């Protein structure tokens, strides 16, 4: 019988914290890896201190920001400042397949847990490090966040309106998708390599470089043509109209994108073939691209008279690409996402029933399964020490008395 969890039996010794690291190990845990997070009450994961909190009441076991990044994982409370902690970690590494961290460079080395040290402990280990800027170079020790990575790689400069200061995407985007998914892909590649060769390896992810890998054209354009691309709102270099338009209601917009003449005709039909659209200014794609200020204004005058979802339905039926700018409430109520089971509700000891997303990659024979909510800090300390490391109750009590574990 084949395992229905493709990563069952793979253990991850997870030093990572905050955004990109835990998002990466979530992807492993979803497919059945045993991810053991090393946490500490004396050095809390910053996300435990950032809301939203259950019922708006702050608490280290109440953050939804933390919880959605950590389902299916176990947590042990270990004080790395204690000299005996390293011995425990060595034992855990001996039972692990993957060791991962997203500290700034030097932290793991300070504990004598750099790649060479760990390889000596477990020769076929897959060792993953994901500092913001890679493990070599003049900025290797730099600290930063997803949102500052946006600024560094050029996403921020390019996202906004040309006549305003750049706003950016409004999130720590590289932490959510580009960094974790690239890293998880690399880890899966290394696991496949180990299956066929028996070898482990070192994986170095520079978070900046992984983010830039999905922002190719502006740097390629500058290198090839000397052009510094500027931000352009919701417009597109190739086609028009291509925009976001206000509709009835507060903060209600619809996105409309027209890629060719027949889609333009279809849009005109839905609009009731208004007289203004007969102008030469809008007769071809090139002319529409040249007259976008006026074009967008005329379209918005029309969209403002309509409700966003009704308009989307009408446009879709006519074959026009359109989508409502959905907010978080809309997403939770979205009929497509719900029919596909994208939202899962898990019962957490302190937060009770609350929402998680599942993976957007639906594997027919080995689907992702969320079977446990985010762990309480140290929830599995005893369980892991007993079951994985084989320690006795007496040994565990002694470690607790000596403040090695919490």
């Amino acid at each position, binding site marked *: 019988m084949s395992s229905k969890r493709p990563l069952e039996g793979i253990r991850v010794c997870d030093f990572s914290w905050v955004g990109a690291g835990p998002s990466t190990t979530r992807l492993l845990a979803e497919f059945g890896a045993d991810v053991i997070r090393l946490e500490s009450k004396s050095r809390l994961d910053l996300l435990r201190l950032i809301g939203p*909190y259950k019922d708006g009441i702050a608490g280290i076991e109440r953050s939804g920001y933390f919880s959605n990044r950590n389902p299916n994982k176990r947590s042990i409370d270990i004080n790395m400042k204690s000299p005996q902690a390293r011995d425990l970690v060595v034992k855990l590494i001996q039972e692990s397949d993957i060791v991962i961290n997203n500290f700034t460079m030097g932290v793991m080395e300070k504990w004598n847990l750099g790649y060479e040290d760990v390889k000596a402990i477990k020769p076929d280990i897959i060792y993953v490090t994901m500092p913001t800027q890679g493990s070599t170079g003049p900025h290797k020790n730099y600290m930063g966040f997803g949102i500052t990575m946006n600024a560094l790689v050029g996403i921020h400069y390019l996202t906004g309106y040309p006549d305003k*200061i750049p706003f950016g995407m409004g999130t720590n985007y590289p932490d959510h998708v580009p960094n974790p*998914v690239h890293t998880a892909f690399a880890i899966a590649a290394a696991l496949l*390599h180990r299956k066929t060769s028996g070898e482990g390896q070192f994986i170095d992810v520079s978070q900046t470089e992984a983010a830039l890998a999905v922002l190719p054209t502006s740097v390629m*354009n500058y290198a090839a043509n000397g052009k510094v691309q500027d931000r352009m709102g*919701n417009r597109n270099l190739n086609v028009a109209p291509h925009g976001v338009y206000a509709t009835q209601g507060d903060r209600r917009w619809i996105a409309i994108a027209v890629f060719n003449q027949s889609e333009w005709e279809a849009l005109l039909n839905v609009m009731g073939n208004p007289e203004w659209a007969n102008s030469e200014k809008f007769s071809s794609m090139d002319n529409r691209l040249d007259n976008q200020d006026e074009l967008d204004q005329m379209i918005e005058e029309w969209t403002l008279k309509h409700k966003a979802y009704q308009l989307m339905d009408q446009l879709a039926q006519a074959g026009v690409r359109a*989508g409502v700018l959905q907010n978080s409430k809309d997403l939770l109520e979205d009929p497509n996402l719900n029919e596909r089971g994208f939202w899962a509700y898990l019962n957490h000891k302190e937060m009770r029933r609350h929402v998680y997303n599942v993976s957007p990659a639906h594997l027919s024979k080995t689907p992702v399964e969320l079977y446990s909510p985010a762990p309480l800090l140290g929830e599995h300390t005893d369980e892991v020490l007993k079951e994985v490391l084989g320690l006795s109750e007496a040994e565990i009590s002694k470690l607790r008395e000596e403040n090695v574990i919490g």
Partner: protein
Amino acid sequence: MSIPEGNVFNNMRIVELAGELGGYTGKLFADLGAEVIRIESIEGDPTRLEKPFYGEIAGIENSLRYQYLNTNKKGIVLDITSPEGKEVFIKLIKTADLLIESLPPGQLESLGLGYETLSVINPKLVHTAITPYGQYGPYKNLPFSDLTCAAMGGMLFLAGTENEKPALVPDKQSFFQADLYAAYGSMIALIHAEMTLEGQYIDVSLQESVATAQENAIQTYDLEGRIRRGLGLVEAGNGTYQCQDGYVYIVAAMGSNVHLWYPLVDWMIEEKIPGAEVLRGEEWGKSEHRKKPESMETFKTIFEQFSGMYSKQDLYQESQKRKVVIYPVNTAKDVLENPQLNYRKYFKERYSESVKGTITYPGCPYELEKIPWVLRSGAPAFGQHTNEVLTSLGYSTEDLQSFVKRGVSYVK
């Protein structure tokens, strides 16, 4: 060019049905050494027509996005709706580990080439399908683009504050997100196939891929009943501010964490910035205080007196020495000149016969010790490998000529 021995990707064959989606999925495999055979229709991949172009000259080989997404791949032209095209496709599938496609739901089935059929031909096949809203669900047939998927997946709504109209992130991030999840899901399925000889079907939705980048917005509604918008300029000490030569993005404020706040304030005090002492007050450690409009204004006035004296790159480098987070809002030019990226030789250059010039590409997103990322070849020209691939499948020169004559294929 040789691929180092012992590389697991070395023995992997991937068939990619070319479209706007899936290109990055194939690239991730191709760049690690897999053989990726990309099948273009007679009309060609629409990405070929996208600006910006190399040399700013329109042409089917000149799109920079096309060039980026298809490095290290082979490209053939084939009409898989024709009987001969189907036969070639099925021969390829017999030898493939992974199929990547992004046709509208049901289209491959209607051609008699759905997963039910393919999995009989090749039980170990991993079949990865990428679509805007998934294979089933009420929205599965909605017309789409990157903009509409960014909207429906919730990313656009977050890119603004208050009542401001949001702006789209560049480079079709919704496509990249789905392609990334498709690549990861495919790797997991390939691991499973390696262990069990069992292939499977993977349904990847753009809308869902985008919705995984909601940060804490979903939980903010679920747990607190609030609909949030974007970070930045909603709280003193987090967001974009002006400096001497452009903008910087700072993170000094972060929930109830204050370890980044005081070092910045102390730096400004050291530089004798008028009013900086005020920011030492305990109330500034609290998010509620920093979110007041008057607090935001006070901070901005004080901070910009300081930042206005320095360039974005100087602020960036000096801030790191002081455990303060100030990042430059870089243009493409700044990015190409970044000393760290250049030290690490991140950007790769290669002469391209297709564009008759040297193309600079972003390089590897990760470095694997035993599986090197190598730029072996640029993107294939239209029909470049038709001859090579079809010949290897046993077709004769006459067969090829006949295919071309009847519009089933194209040979460059």
